[in-house]
């Protein structure tokens, strides 16, 4: 279906990444946001709380991040498109209920505008250290989807994609911004509502009497009923049977977990998204994401000007990771160079996917600033030797 024009601020704007993310959420049909505002993500909810009253949306400033995530899960079960917004310290506090969202198969979006960590770290300065936490930060085994924008324009575009993916796979989708993209102001073009595709909640057509909340008939997903529509059903974080009631058995656990993992892993080819350029005859491929991908392109240009054959691959979707593509490339390139604002998270994934066929060179940065392009160029040159 097409976006509701009421939520779409069509036109050319000069917006920061946080505002653009808020606009993307509203364009995607998000009408419920609960959060505990935290730097550098605060502007997302500032924007939303200012615009929601005109859209009939509800923003609740909650008492903390635990409650914020709980409210997002609850509101999603009324059929609403829901989101919360935070940064590292709040993201940690949300982990318990992110696991609940995963277990209950609740579509929702969690925006994390990453700052330097660990702990309270660098509130106003950039980091990319929450990448692994976004994947498996809550206990138990599950899969999520995570996206990473490199500009305010993508903060808008990819927020819409995040909501659509949450609906298609019934998962919490992690929107991994970083402080630099969040606080950077650039041109953002918001199209007409009719040019924006929106994935609606797929509601069951069964009668309340014949509906079971976790019965899977076709594909890998159960059908959805909204609380309040007369469907009496139960859902829980405990391992549950198709009726949604707890069942503590090995067999039921296998059904639950294999679905949570399988619905993402089996569809990874449709979910992964990356951009690549000049990789075909490259000796070295630089793999990056978010703000670091922009800085890394300068390093790629510089290395090419010195005669090196350097390709570039940018992760748009981080989780699931494009391991097939990395493995293919590993067969033809000598090395991967992976700059990221952490001490090596995606670099480990690249190394794993390369499976010993090519060498992986991380380019570490502890956070608080972006890499200097020269620091990346230097590693590219070493990797090319």
């Amino acid at each position: 279906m097409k976006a509701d024009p009421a939520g779409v601020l069509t036109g050319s704007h000069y917006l920061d990444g946080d505002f653009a993310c808020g606009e993307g959420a509203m364009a995607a049909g998000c009408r419920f946001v609960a959060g505990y505002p935290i730097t550098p993500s605060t502007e997302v909810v500032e924007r939303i709380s200012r615009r929601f009253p005109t859209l009939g949306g509800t923003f609740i400033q909650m008492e903390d991040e635990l409650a914020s995530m709980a409210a997002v899960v609850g509101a999603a079960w009324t059929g609403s498109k829901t989101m919360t917004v935070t940064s590292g310290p709040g993201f940690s506090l949300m982990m318990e209920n992110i696991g609940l969202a995963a277990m209950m198969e609740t579509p929702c979006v969690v925006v994390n505008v990453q700052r330097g960590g660990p702990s309270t770290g660098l509130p106003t300065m950039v980091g990319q250290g929450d990448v692994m936490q976004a994947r498996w930060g809550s206990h138990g085994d599950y899969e999520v989807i995570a996206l990473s924008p490199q500009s305010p324009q993508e903060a808008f575009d990819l927020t819409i994609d995040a909501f659509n993916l949450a609906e298609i796979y019934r998962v919490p989708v992690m929107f991994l911004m970083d402080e630099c993209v969040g606080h950077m102001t650039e041109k953002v073009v918001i199209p007409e509502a009719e040019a924006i595709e929106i994935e609606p909640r797929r509601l069951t057509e069964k009668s309340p009497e014949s509906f079971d909340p976790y019965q899977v008939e076709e594909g890998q997903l159960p059908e959805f009923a909204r609380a309040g529509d007369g469907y009496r059903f139960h859902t829980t974080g405990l391992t549950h049977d198709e009726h949604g009631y707890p069942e503590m058995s090995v067999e039921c656990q296998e059904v639950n977990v294999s679905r949570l993992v399988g619905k993402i892993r089996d569809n990874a080819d449709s979910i992964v998204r990356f951009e690549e350029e000049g990789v075909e005859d490259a000796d070295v491929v630089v793999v990056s994401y978010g703000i670091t991908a922009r800085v890394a392109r300068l390093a790629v240009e510089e290395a090419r000007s010195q005669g090196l054959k350097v390709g570039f691959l940018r992760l748009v979707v981080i989780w699931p990771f494009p391991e097939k593509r990395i493995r293919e490339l590993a067969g033809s390139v000598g090395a991967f160079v992976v700059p990221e604002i952490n001490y090596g998270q995606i670099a480990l994934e690249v190394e794993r996917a390369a499976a010993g066929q090519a060498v992986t060179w991380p380019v570490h940065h502890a956070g608080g600033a972006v890499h200097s392009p020269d620091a990346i160029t230097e590693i590219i040159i070493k990797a090319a030797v």
Partner: protein
Amino acid sequence: MSGRTEIRITGFGGQGVVLAGHIIGRACAIHAGRQATMIQSFGPEARGSACSATLVVSDREVLYPYIQRPDIFVVMSGEGYEKYGRELKEEGTLVFEQDLVHPRTVEGQRACGVPSTRIAESLGRTIVQNIVMVGFFAGVTGLVADEAMRDAVRGSVPAGTEDLNLEAFEKGLEYARKSPGESSVSVSEPSLEEVSP
């Protein structure tokens, strides 16, 4: 990184530093078909004392969003000048509030001063000092067409204040025409009467 113009705008909190940066960036990015990335300072320095915004303006995609050494330094407070004055490129342009900033002469740099606070006072609203400065900036740098800047002012200020702000913009622009700055800091200064309504 050729083809880039790096700009820093600084002043004290409340002078409208970020809005001034936003208007210049918007003029370039929305009304003049260029790329413009603005970053504003966050943290304690943005809460009362020296406040700063930086802009990178380019004809190609801005890959590195931070400035290294500005080509243009717009400064509206003495503290801002002390903090950032030394970064300005040797051949850079200094644009300053001449009653509040008393810059040192640097050979090769162009220095353009404007009594933007007094001009704003003459319009009856000190608050538009930053817009006078934006007008003066437009006149002395010629970074983008004046009309693009006017569109950006119109689209960035609160509804109902467009006329006042555009008047402030024109006053700054007019002052720049009369006193476009020199390559030393001894600026010849037209009297306020010449630019008053």
